């Protein structure tokens, strides 16, 4: 199963990923449109003493946010592995149990709808918008094992550098 992975050293905090994420989740699908619509990103480019650190949802196998959801809105799709509180019959009520449960801080509040806001891995896209937008190749969308293997070999490193 593919994951969004981060090469932390390559991130320079430009926040292109956050803008692309907001655009993808807007009506207009544009960065400017997202700003006008008040759409917030679901990838959180935070800082560790000034050094950028993007917080990305891992779509955990045994996701604490799913267990915590008392409305049943937060679900993990058995097929895609995507964890999201959107698109289900059970509606999120903004109780923030998931925010309390997520050890990564990958869930935030959507002030517009007062519901939880998190990565849905861009269901309409083959490659998530954040990954596609990263100008530094700091984000990858790949199988964890493939990535780990690639990292382990010099050949893999070379491939990643030109990828």
């Amino acid at each position, binding site marked *: 199963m593919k994951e969004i992975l981060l090469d932390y050293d390559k991130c320079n905090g430009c926040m292109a990923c956050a803008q692309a994420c907001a655009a993808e989740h807007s009506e207009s699908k544009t960065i400017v449109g997202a700003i006008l619509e008040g759409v917030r990103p679901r990838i959180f480019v935070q800082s560790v003493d000034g050094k950028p650190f993007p917080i990305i949802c891992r779509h955990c196998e045994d996701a604490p946010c799913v267990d*915590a959801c008392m409305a049943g809105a937060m679900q993990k799709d058995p097929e895609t592995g995507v964890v999201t509180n959107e698109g289900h019959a059970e509606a999120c009520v903004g109780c923030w149990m998931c925010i*309390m449960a997520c050890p990564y801080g990958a869930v935030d509040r959507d002030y517009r709808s007062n519901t939880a806001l998190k990565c849905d891995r861009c269901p309409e896209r083959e490659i998530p918008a954040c990954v596609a937008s990263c100008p530094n190749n700091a984000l990858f969308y790949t199988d964890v094992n493939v990535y780990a293997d690639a990292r382990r070999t010099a050949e893999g490193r070379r491939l990643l550098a030109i990828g």
Partner: protein
Amino acid sequence: MRYLIIGSSAAGIKAAETLRGLDREASITVLSEENEPPYSRCLLPEYLSGKKSREELTFRAGNFFKDNNIETMLGERAVYVDPAGQEVILESGEAVGYDKLLVATGASSTCPPLPGIDKVGFTGIRNLDDADLILNRCRSGNKAVVIGGGFVGLETAYALNRRGLDVAVVELAPHILALQFDATAAEILANDMKQSGIKIYAGTATRELRPPEGLGRLGSEAENTVVLDDGTELKAHLVLTCTGTKPNVELLVGTGAEINRGIVVNEYMETTVPNIYAAGDACESTDLVSGEKGLTPIWPNAVIQGKTAAYNMAGRPRKVSPLLGLQNAVEFREVPAIAAGLSTSGPQDGLEILTVHQPTRGIYRKIVLEENVIKGMIFVGNIQNAGVIAALIRKQADVSKIKDKLLDYSFNYGYLWPGMVKKELEEMEAEAV
């Protein structure tokens, strides 16, 4: 294999779902005295306020039982368990056999010994029937008094307020939410509630409840009177009492199962009786901060316990990690708040307390430490990354190297990345992924 699960809320449903995932063939039966599809009692305030319909209270899709091939016995009440015969006897006299039994019977509202409560009538809020009764009473007038300013009381008060009722809350403790929030946090939340017009009487005992007198009883808008300790009299068409719950343990009385306040279970969610398991609000398990056995009555814990019980019932031994008994997230009007662990402690308890407080913005953060290990937290107003701190409580990790960062609004998971808490972090990752 025959699995019988009594209770169809967080623990029961999660257990049924997990069992089906582990065993495609087994017979799984969910028995509940409520004749309803699985609904979330945490959503009852949404129902009271009118924001959600009855149908929208479900936390699993409507065809959940059918899709998962789970038998149901809804509207049936279990009255006795025969451990030797491996049978549960129903009120109707019917006996239901099991190979493995999960008792996920939850808890019930307790009725406080208030003078006059017998005359006014006790009304709590625990299930759909309670909610329907309250909605029915709302028709007789628009004044409500909620006795008990804990989470349930306040959620209910706010729901009735949104419904248009004139609501007052009476709390015995010096401030609302006294179990999990300190006075500073409670003040911010109380002020937020007052914005909606809810009146709060904290630090006040209820002296007496008086039903309508004389001819007043005949009117369609009969008013009860709630008399406070200082003599204040509050008029109410509806008096609600939200002062606590007690675990539903009766079913196992006499079976030999050890029962304390709740049903005692080990880390495999086994009771002291073979083949009988317990999970959710009915059971007691080890609290991660205190290390002692206690109730952990909160949705996420019930789900984890239900899941763990299911694994063990299916013969896949799995321990439940110690749970945070006290943890809650809430947003009554517009101020979100999260508290976990020993959140109300102060320096007088010999603990280290870090706080940041910006009253004009409604922001308060508090972190309670003991020897550089986080034991409790409160985030009010700005709850981003609260889960990272809560995870550090669950991990009981040494945070000495990042202590000065913990209260920063910009504190985030990245601070755990380069080194210091690395081991714990890897464990966290291993557990999560």
